[in-house]
């Protein structure tokens, strides 16, 4: 071989030469070359073709042996390997197949009939029916049976689950902490205090709580039996996992915000006390005989309370007393020195209460409340518009430069 020629076609990774480019190309596509390439990346020296062939043979042999071993382990195990889930999946697929077939048959029957539409004697259109074939009947029955079977299976599953849960149920007495378990308290109050202080479990509306034991027992059951997290409805696999979840995520709290959450524990509460106060007030008003006037005043007061809420706008936080705390983003435009609210002594209060001249124009609270409502509504609608606009700002799934089209 001419050295000048031979040096033209080489493979650096396998350290061999070729007589022509055809050979070189075929080599590059081969397994041996690929192997050597990988070795080179791993900074290993290349191996010769014989060695590679040997290696391939031995590894293939091993594989075959293993496969044979596996096969010899027996047919039964293969079935087991297809676990329950896969089995169910298979069955469902079969059932679907059968249903599809059934549909097709029915369709064929109609088409085969030519879909003849005959005008009845009384002018009604009648589609002629063809009798069902036996095949179709069989299929139908099979499908029905399968459906029944599946239902039964499901039922069995649920029952099993409940049984399992019952077996795993962890009963914690209300005088113990469900999270610590070691301590035993004298009464339920001790437990609640421990839960509040150590785990931060806050019982909402404690004033109206009448059945402490019931509430705590319910919560314990939810955790110990249902293995459900109190605040996020996470279902734990077992008692240990749910406790772990609640402790690590700080989820030891009773959600009490929307109506559903409130209703959930409402059985343990009695809010009739809160109604009584109102009715009492109304009774006294009744005695005065000034129903309507006072009623109006009450309404006003309600509005006042609404108006006295804090609310934030783009440029600041509106305090109930009418002050506006500027947002810090505006600090570069102006500096704010808000005066602290002044407390009046009794003397000053008396003089102000008796004063008629300066403060004749009393503030019309009704008008202000109405104005505030309008502003709030405007702000809200502006907000929703903005959000909507933001949502639909870009319809395109991918960026496409219109100039390049």
């Amino acid at each position, binding site marked *: 071989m001419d050295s000048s020629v031979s040096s033209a076609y080489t493979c650096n990774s396998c350290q061999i030469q070729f007589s022509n480019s055809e050979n070189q190309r075929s080599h590059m596509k081969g397994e041996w070359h690929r192997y050597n390439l990988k070795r080179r990346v791993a900074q290993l020296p290349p191996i010769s073709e014989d060695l590679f062939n040997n290696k391939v043979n031995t590894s293939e042999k091993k594989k075959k042996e293993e496969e044979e071993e596996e096969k010899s382990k027996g047919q039964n195990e293969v079935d087991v390997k297809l676990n329950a889930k896969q089995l169910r999946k298979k069955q469902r697929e079969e059932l679907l197949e059968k249903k599809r077939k059934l549909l097709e048959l029915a369709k064929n029957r109609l088409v085969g009939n030519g879909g003849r539409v005959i005008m009845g004697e009384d002018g009604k259109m009648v589609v002629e029916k063809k009798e069902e074939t036996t095949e179709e009947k069989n299929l139908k029955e099979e499908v029905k049976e399968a459906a029944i079977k599946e239902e039964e299976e499901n039922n069995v599953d649920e029952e099993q689950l409940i049984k399992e849960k019952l077996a795993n149920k962890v009963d914690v007495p209300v005088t113990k902490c469900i999270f610590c378990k070691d301590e035993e308290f004298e009464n339920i109050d001790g437990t609640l205090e421990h839960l509040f202080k150590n785990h931060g479990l806050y019982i909402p509306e404690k004033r109206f709580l009448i059945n402490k034991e019931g509430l705590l027992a319910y919560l314990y059951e939810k955790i110990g039996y249902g293995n459900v997290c109190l605040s996020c409805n996470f279902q734990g696999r077992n008692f240990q996992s749910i406790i772990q979840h609640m402790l690590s995520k700080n989820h030891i709290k009773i959600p009490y915000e929307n109506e559903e959450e409130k209703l959930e524990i409402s059985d343990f509460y009695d809010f009739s006390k809160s109604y009584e106060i109102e009715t009492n007030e109304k009774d006294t008003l009744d005695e005065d005989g000034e129903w309507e006037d006072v009623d109006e005043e009450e309404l006003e007061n309600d509005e006042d309370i609404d108006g006295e809420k804090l609310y934030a706008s783009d440029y600041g936080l509106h305090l109930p*007393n*009418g002050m506006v705390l500027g947002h810090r983003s505006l600090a570069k435009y102006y500096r704010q020195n808000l*005066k602290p*609210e*002044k407390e*009046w*002594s*009794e*003397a*000053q*209060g*008396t*003089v*102000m*209460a*008796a*004063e*008629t*001249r*300066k*403060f004749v124009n*009393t*503030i019309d609270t009704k008008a202000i409340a109405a104005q505030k409502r309008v502003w709030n509504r405007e702000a809200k609608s502006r907000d929703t518009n903005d959000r909507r606009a933001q949502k639909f700002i870009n319809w395109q799934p991918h960026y496409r430069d219109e100039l390049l089209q």
Partner: protein
Amino acid sequence: MALQISPKDTDLLLKQKNVLSADVLDKYRYAGEVTQTCLQYIISLINDSYHLGKHEPYSAAELCLLGDSFMQTLINGKFKKVIEKSIAQPVTLDVNDLVVGYSPELTDDEKTNLTFKVGDIVTINLGCHIDGYTSNLAHTIVIFPSGLTPPGPLLGESSDAIVASYLANETIVTLLACALKTEKIPNSLLNDKSNRQITGSIIRNVVNAIAESFNCTVVPTSKVRRIRRFLAGQAEGVVAERDFKGVVWSEIDQEKELLKRCNFTEDGEIISNSNELITIDQNKGRSIDNPDKAIPTDDFVILPGEVYMIDIKMAPINKDEPGLYTLESLDGKTKEGFNAKHSIFIRDVSMSEQLKLRNSRRLLSLVDKHQSVYPFKLSYVSENFPLNSKGNLIEQLNHIEKDVNIFKFGLNECINKQLFVSKAILSCKFIPLKEILKVPTSTGINGYDAANPTLPGMELPLPKLGITSLKLKTLFKYGKRTVVSRYVSTVALSNEVGCVRLSGGNKLFTPSWVHTNYQLQGSIAEIVNELSALTQDERFGIKIDECNVLDISNVGEEANDMEE
């Protein structure tokens, strides 16, 4: 505006706290006792220095400061738990024609800090409050030539005024006490015999009748008014309080009399036809609504359970010439004649302002800390006030003088920013009617004097003649100063205890020796006699419980120290 008090609090502050319970009456009584004791102390100081010649005569400033300090010590002595208690009316010594407000500071010079002369009549006015329950007191004394007993009574115009005001004051006290026992009211006073009650118009008629029989006139700003907790008329004009109840005398009443007299005058100088005189009626074309009852009217009934302040000022009338007796406010600026500087101030709580000067900020913070809604003097916020009787008195006085000088630097800004309102020093002046009639009223009747605020509804002093207070000001140059005598006492009408006279009373303070040529005349003589007879006998008449003086064995050492 943030300055609103809720209706609930208003009810509590204005109604419930004013129920005259035993507790409240105790506070009133102590306030009354303090004023009585303090008045006695000041009279003894004047007697010692002017009449008995024990030492050099005290100047007005010294007397005021000693009186204030004495009063403050007494106030601090009892009711330790009550936070708000202080001097309600700084000691003022209104000489002759001065009516209210003359209370110089130690820093004033000879010209404005007076020493009294023989024959002067001096009105000592003071007041204090315990938890807002106020007792005010004014008493007029005569400066006699020095000696153990005066050589003779005071004669002349001044004595007429003293007798008239004293008598009016005592009569009204008895009349108010009659409100508790309505069956004792003299029948001749009542228009309607079946409806036995003391009304505002009865009080006005009695006072006017007494003034007339002693040839005097009731000076504007005289009043018989109900006082309430923290509302004792200390800021009249600045504050227009709701549910004002009281008789107030003003130029309007004098105008009516003048116009009546003009009808009968045949003098060529004065227009005799009343139809020409009465040209402008302020009520014409205006609707005066009084929903808060802030404008005083005589149409009220005195009820048990209320506390009244009787403030009667009388001036002798010039018989020869008709004219108006009105009040000039001294501003301390013009140099001619006597002109005192304002020294009493009231904090206007509705105003707040960032002050520029360090001195004014300091003064404001001190005032806000120590004083409330009652008038104060600069010396009150000094560290050395009240004077400590055990320390060196001269040194303490020097300290107060120094402090006041420093406070004066900041005072101007506080007044300019309207944080403080200065109390006017009023002097009584007689303006002849012919000068009033000459003045043109080109500006109309809608102007009023903002610098000297009056009670609501009284902004126009002469409504029939259509002369505003600003126009009246221009007439003071034709005016002549007139002496004024003034008596103030406070009376609590309690259903359970009866009538308690908190301040004043002839058991403690006998009036000075004066002699008048006039006598009570006509029906008023009978009424006054009948009423004074009622007070003589407790069994068949009316019992008036006068507040006594306090035991001051441990406090009254200042005077002795002063002599050294």
